[in-house]
């Protein structure tokens, strides 16, 4: 997932601040914790001193009380009676008076006279004291499992008569008193044997040291106790008050760590509160800052996207004086610049740079707009061409002609009718969209535009006379799409050129033929490249020799798009486009190959091949042909080239020269379609041919038409007189054949004999040809 700028800024700020705060709080807490512990330790130290002082004070008070008691007259009197019962009475009474829990009386010598408790071994230490001093003293002792503060006072009457000891049990009440003063929990640990369980007396609730009972070495037991308390959250300080072989007593002063830290807990709470507040404030501030950044960025991003999508009109509105404002202004000026450049590019894309007129694309747009806005409103389209542009260009060069074109554009613009649109659509072509052009006005409008070209153009000192031609299309009558309009205007223009007219109107239907021609020409080129032609052979019968002596090679073309195509249609187009030479080449190759095959089969069969006018006029073709016939192992005598009259007519001199070369090379030539052209007899005389081929139009109905009979007969005679042989094509019945035979025709060709056949069909046909069917003619 992509994290937004705002979020990442927020994360960074908050985590940085959080880290800082956390570190600070951690450091402070560490310091305060250490401080609290140190304070607690100090407190404990003080508490322990206070405790010791209290203990001393307590024993001093007890001593005072005991001393006061021992000085009581009645007391002394009672002791002095030396009567045991009285002594018991007074000891018990006075002991109770001062709240003693333990009473012991010793002889001045130190022997125990009487005692409430089995004070045991401790007496030794008392005796020690008694012997060395005369004044009262106190000590701690543990008797019968209870710790006591024992005060020993001498009883003097006035001589020392006894030592009386008053013991005060150290109970929880005393502990609580100590606690109230020291402000520390007091725990007393003690035992009066060396190995037994250690008893504890504590001010702590649910004394945690009671279970399990402590035992073992006293010093380590104290440590264990301190540790156990620490686990319960108490910081303790220990001191040993008695540590003799059979009595041990220690004190643990404890303060609650929690309480010690309580003050700091408050501090921590406050710090956490401050930290939380700081984080929230920082988050809000960061969010605000981020918004201050992301909002203009969002605006800029939106603007950039809009500009990228091509909308430059809307300015970026960022009312800020900071960097964002500058960026916004920059975007705006960039937008303006792009807009300007785009306008410029659009102008260039739509206009001809040389003349400033709308160009071909622009005219297409205008025309399409015009067609779609008012399709039924008539208008005219004038395609004007400077007809002598190429020639002028050859003479004066491009730069001069550019200036001519500029002036021409100016003149056209000057003569422009108000609603007309003029554009330059080709090097020397202008297209005029003439509004409301009716056929009646046509001539006048055309004249108006051509008028501008009457005066010569002046370039430097040169005077140039430009001639123009115009093709006119009336819309929507003639065409209603730009493509059609332009093409048909060109057709009209071509018509004008063909007929050397200043202008020509488009004639309806011209375009379809034209299109067909273009298509056929195009497909023909494809066929030449990729194949698609087939060669058929129509046999020719030698009437004199009485045999099939040759066959005419006829091209057939099966096109996948156009279907079966006839030579009548595509050969003229191939001649126009110049592709005929390639086709002739193909036919020649194919025919020669086939002839060789026949020869190999033992058929003495020649081939007639049609040459087009174009072939004849192409010198290099003739060169190649002659060279080829000379080199290849070809029976030239079996080869016949047929040329139509019209082929020679276009450029007779050139054609005749080339024909002569073929003739000289030993190739047989025949004049095809004889009788359809307008060749003069003188030409015929000069034609280097061996044979005439009477056109089938004279032969098809020969048996019925007497005129045809006369023409054919005289043609045959004439040809024979000129030394030419004659062949008739289009023979379709036996009657015509018989007539031709009688007329002395040399050979025939036609459906009566055979229709054109493929090479393989011909081979079969030859094998079964009934010689005798025709031989009867001889009879």
């Amino acid at each position, binding site marked *: 997932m992509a994290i937004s700028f705002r979020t990442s800024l927020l994360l960074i700020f908050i985590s940085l601040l959080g880290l800082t705060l956390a570190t600070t709080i951690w450091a402070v807490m560490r310091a305060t914790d250490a401080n609290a512990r140190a304070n607690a330790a100090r407190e404990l130290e003080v508490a322990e001193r206070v405790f010791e002082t209290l203990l001393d004070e307590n024993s001093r008070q007890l001593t005072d009380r005991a001393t006061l008691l021992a000085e009581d007259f009645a*007391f002394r009197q*009672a002791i002095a009676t030396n009567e045991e*019962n009285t002594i018991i009475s007074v000891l*018990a*009474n006075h002991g*109770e008076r001062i709240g003693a829990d333990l009473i012991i009386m010793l002889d001045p010598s130190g022997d125990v006279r*009487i005692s409430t408790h089995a004070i045991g071994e401790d007496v030794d230490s008392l005796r020690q004291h008694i012997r060395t001093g005369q004044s009262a003293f106190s000590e701690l002792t543990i008797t019968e499992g209870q710790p006591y503060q024992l005060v020993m006072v001498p009883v003097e009457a006035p001589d020392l008569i006894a030592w009386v000891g008053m013991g005060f049990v150290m109970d929880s009440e005393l502990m609580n008193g100590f606690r109230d003063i020291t402000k520390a929990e007091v725990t007393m640990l003690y035992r009066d044997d060396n190995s037994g369980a250690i008893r504890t007396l504590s001010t702590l609730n649910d004394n945690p040291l009671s279970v399990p009972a402590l035992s073992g070495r006293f010093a380590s037991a104290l440590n264990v106790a301190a540790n156990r308390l620490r686990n319960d959250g108490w910081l303790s300080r220990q001191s040993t008050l008695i540590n003799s072989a059979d009595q041990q007593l220690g004190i643990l002063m404890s303060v609650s760590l929690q309480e010690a830290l309580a003050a700091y807990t408050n501090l921590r709470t406050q710090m956490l509160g401050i930290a939380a507040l700081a984080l929230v404030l920082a988050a809000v501030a960061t969010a605000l800052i981020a918004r201050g950044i992301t909002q203009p960025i969002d605006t800029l991003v939106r603007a950039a996207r809009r500009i990228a999508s091509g909308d430059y009109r809307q300015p970026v509105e960022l009312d800020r004086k900071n960097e964002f404002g500058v960026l916004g202004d920059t975007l705006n000026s960039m937008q303006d610049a792009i807009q300007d450049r785009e306008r410029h590019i659009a102008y260039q894309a739509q206009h001809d740079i040389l003349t400033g007129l709308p160009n071909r694309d622009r005219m297409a747009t205008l025309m399409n707009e015009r067609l779609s806005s008012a399709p039924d409103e008539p208008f005219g389209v004038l395609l004007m061409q400077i007809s002598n542009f190429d020639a002028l260009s050859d003479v004066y060069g491009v730069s001069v002609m550019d200036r001519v074109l500029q002036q021409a554009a100016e003149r056209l613009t000057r003569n422009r009718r108000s609603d007309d649109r003029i554009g330059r659509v080709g090097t020397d072509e202008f297209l005029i969209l003439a509004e409301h052009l009716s056929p009646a006005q046509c001539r006048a409008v055309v004249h108006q535009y051509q008028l501008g070209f009457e005066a010569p153009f002046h370039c430097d000192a040169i005077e140039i006379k430009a001639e123009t031609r115009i093709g006119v299309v009336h819309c929507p009558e003639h065409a209603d799409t730009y493509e059609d309009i332009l093409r048909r205007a060109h057709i009209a223009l071509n018509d004008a050129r063909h007929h050397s007219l200043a202008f020509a109107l488009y004639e309806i239907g011209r375009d379809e033929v034209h299109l067909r021609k273009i298509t056929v020409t195009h497909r023909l080129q494809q066929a030449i490249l990729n194949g698609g032609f087939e060669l058929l052979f129509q046999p020719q019968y030698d009437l004199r020799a009485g045999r099939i002596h040759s066959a005419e090679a006829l091209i057939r073309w099966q096109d996948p798009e156009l279907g079966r195509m006839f030579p009548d249609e595509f050969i003229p187009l191939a001649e126009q486009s110049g592709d005929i030479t390639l086709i002739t080449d193909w036919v020649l190759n194919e025919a020669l190959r086939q002839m060789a095959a026949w020869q190999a089969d033992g058929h003495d069969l020649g081939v007639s091949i049609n040459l087009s006018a174009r072939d004849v006029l192409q010198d290099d073709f003739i060169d190649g042909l002659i060279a080829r016939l000379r080199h290849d192992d070809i029976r030239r005598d079996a080869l016949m080239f047929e040329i139509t009259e019209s082929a020679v007519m276009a450029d007779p001199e050139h054609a005749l020269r080339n024909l002569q070369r073929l003739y000289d090379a030993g190739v047989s030539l025949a004049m095809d379609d004889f009788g359809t052209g307008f060749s003069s007899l003188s030409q015929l005389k000069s034609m280097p041919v061996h044979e005439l081929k009477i056109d089938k139009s004279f032969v098809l109905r020969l048996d019925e038409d007497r005129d045809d009979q006369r023409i054919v007969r005289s043609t045959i005679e004439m040809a024979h007189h000129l030394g030419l042989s004659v062949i008739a094509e289009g023979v379709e019945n036996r009657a015509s054949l018989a007539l031709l035979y009688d007329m002395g025709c040399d050979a025939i060709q036609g459906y009566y004999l055979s229709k054109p056949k493929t090479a393989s069909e011909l081979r079969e046909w030859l094998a079964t040809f009934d010689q005798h069917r025709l031989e009867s003619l001889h009879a």
Partner: protein
Amino acid sequence: MRRLKTGLLGLLGGVWIGGAAQAATLPGLTLVDLQGQPVSEAVLVLEGAETTAPEGEPGEAIVDQVDLEFVPRVAVVRAGTRVRFPNSDDTRHHVYSFSPAKTFELQLYQGNEAPPVEFDQSGLVVLGCNIHDSMRGYIYVVDSQIYGVSDAQGRITLPAYSEGSADRVTLWHPDMKQSMSLSLSDLRQAGGETLEIQLPFTLPETEPEPEGSGLRNRLQRYKNNGD
């Protein structure tokens, strides 16, 4: 039995008049506390009453000390009575009193060593023992001839007295802050064969022997073990 309530009204009771014109007797009285518990060791004095019997001189009384207690604990004596304080315990006693009616001291003594003490002034004398702080005894010294101390059932039966010699009774008990005075006529009006008088206090719960005497026991035990 009729019950006579004390209170602000003061006394109650009818005085039963005996057969003899000169002699009068009060009906049998039963003293109870506010809870109805019989109050023993309460003192009742018929102020100023004179006995119908011929008046004798005040005699001698005995306040013994048995098991660290004064026996009886409460004694009523006519002024001028000499009281002996024999010691029946095996420990000595040091009997003393600081009461205004009689201040005296009998220093540590045993047996019948101590001389009798004459109580010549009426009033309350509180007795103590200097070496047995728990010992307490009361000698109520009166001028009247007619008085009594309630027994364990709280009953007091007074002897006959001379009609008209007294008109008030005073009631006292160690646990009462002050003595109480009742008009005899109120008592008489209450009438009846016996009369219950409610005293305005509540007897303290009888505490078990304080364990404090453990010290004595222990010392005693030590002594016995030593013997």
